[in-house]
């Protein structure tokens, strides 16, 4: 092989490499530009409708008068139920799998099962909820059914992030606590949980941001698309001041409201859909932003 031949080969390989870098940047740009196009288009279409009235009005037959009051209140209440159900259950399961579980076949089955649950399409959870919560348990098409459905859906996310947060804590911390005579639960409650709380919180926020945008399973349990009233107030004038009647009330949520407006033929409703989309997107991006920031801070501040 003579020298000029080698040089050509090297030059050609370098060129391929440059071309690939270009390709990689183009691929990134396609993804990012899509995201950007989505944001701008949604903002352009939705901005004119984003006035205070939009947030304080019920849906209406007239596009200009319609608002998202019942939708955002519904989303908020459903998220509350979801958080109440998913956080204790998911964090407990994560603690058990990471700190208590013996290494045997049963544990392996539970672990594989959690991974598989994460792969099940969300609409199948909707069918589960329709058969179980709505029909069998008789919760009806209520906030409670929806909240529990979304709780099941995000359970794997919370379990996995709890486990990862716990795994990141060095074994020395556990050993030091045990050496002082702490029981297993004391180690978990007094040491591991406080140290892992940032990681757990990140997982919870990501899970809830996924839940708030979920549409399909909530449609499946039969959430109404046209709700021009609010659920019963959780606060009462007389004792005990707090009422839980609202959990069994019918409801609608942001993504369903947006879907409903998107599927109307009149163009005016498309602008409402875009405005609802802006609000929905702002909610999810805010939650994700907080989660990313939190993770970044944990990585920076904790050096074991």
């Amino acid at each position, binding site marked *: 092989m003579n020298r000029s031949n080698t040089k050509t080969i090297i030059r050609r*390989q370098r060129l391929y*490499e440059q071309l690939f870098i270009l390709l990689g940047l183009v691929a990134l740009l396609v993804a990012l530009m899509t995201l950007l196009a989505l944001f701008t288009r949604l903002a352009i279409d939705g901005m004119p409708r984003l006035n205070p009235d939009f947030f304080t009005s019920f849906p209406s037959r007239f596009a200009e008068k319609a608002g998202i009051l019942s939708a955002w209140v519904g989303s908020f209440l459903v998220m509350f139920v979801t958080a109440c159900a998913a956080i204790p259950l998911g964090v407990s399961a994560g603690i058990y799998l990471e700190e208590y579980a013996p290494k045997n076949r049963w544990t392996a089955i539970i672990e594989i099962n959690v991974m598989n649950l994460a792969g099940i399409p969300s609409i199948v959870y909707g069918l589960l909820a329709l058969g179980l919560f709505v029909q069998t348990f008789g919760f009806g098409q209520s906030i409670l059914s929806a909240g529990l459905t979304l709780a099941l859906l995000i359970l794997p996310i919370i379990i996995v992030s709890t486990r990862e947060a716990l795994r990141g804590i060095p074994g020395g911390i556990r050993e030091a606590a045990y050496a002082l005579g702490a029981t297993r639960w004391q180690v978990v409650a007094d040491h591991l949980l406080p140290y892992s709380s940032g990681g757990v919180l990140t997982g919870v926020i990501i899970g809830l941001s996924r839940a708030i945008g979920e549409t399909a399973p909530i449609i499946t349990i039969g959430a109404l698309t046209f709700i021009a009233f609010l659920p019963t107030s959780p606060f009462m004038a007389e004792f005990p001041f707090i009422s839980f009647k609202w959990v069994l009330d019918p409801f609608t949520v942001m993504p369903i409201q947006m879907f409903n407006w998107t599927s109307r033929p009149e163009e005016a409703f498309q602008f409402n859909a875009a405005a609802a989309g802006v609000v929905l997107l702002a909610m999810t991006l805010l939650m994700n932003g907080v989660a990313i920031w939190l993770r970044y801070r944990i990585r920076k501040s904790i050096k074991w």
Partner: protein
Amino acid sequence: MKNSHPRARKRRIKEQFIEIGLLTAACSSVAITFAIIFVLLKESLNFFAEVPLFDFLTDTQWTPLFDDAHFGILTLISGTVTTTLVALAVAVPLGLTIAIYISEFASPRLREIIKPILELLGAVPTVVFGYFALIVVTPLLQKIYPDLPGFNMLSAGLVMGIMIVPYISSVSEDAMRAVPMQLREGAYAMGATRLRTALTVVIPAAFSGLAAALTLGSSRAVGETMVVAVAAGMQPNLTLNPLQPAATISSFIVQVSLGDLPHDSIGYKTIFAAGLTLLLITLVFNVIGYWLRQKFREEY
């Protein structure tokens, strides 16, 4: 420790209660799986008591809510397959290229910026993507191909593809980053460029992880509902042509659920049979993925 102190005993009992509580929480995930299988099977059995399985698998029409009812699930499967293939045709090349770029070429600083942004792409609610497909992508495609109907599987599939790029790229990138540095250094020492190293050393070594990324992406695409429900129309259509409107398994379930469903109606039972089919399809993907992971697993 028979004559232990009462306080120590009390504490032990408390510990045991807590452990049982935590175990119960962990087992709830298994209970969810069983509940899903039980509910889907129970309602599907009611369905198959009325509709022969043979008709379900071979009929070429899907009109469960009409007087002349036909239950050919192939019609819905064709929609699911078509949109999934379009989505994968976008997501696999894009996702893999991005993963190789981030893992092998990008500087750590660029990586720190890009990864959260890609994550945001995966966090956008699917109904928003549906709006984007219907209002932005379809009119754009109609400029290139004027005969394209307002509802079509192409634009739904393309947007779905962009949507699952982050899933494929992040799992692939994790797999490639897990490949030990020595393997790369070996290749560099032989005079290979970074691209050649990536293609001939890193990708083969990370293949089982890439297979996992692919299965994850596919099962996301198969189960994706709202983009298709908004942008692909909801008429069942036995075709593999992405330029046509069609219903998928999941968008059919949504369409039926939007109406008021009496508990004992055939429509109610039908969505469970459709859901069972969807679950079986994703199960097949997961089994293939598991098999690929086992077959190509590399230990270092």
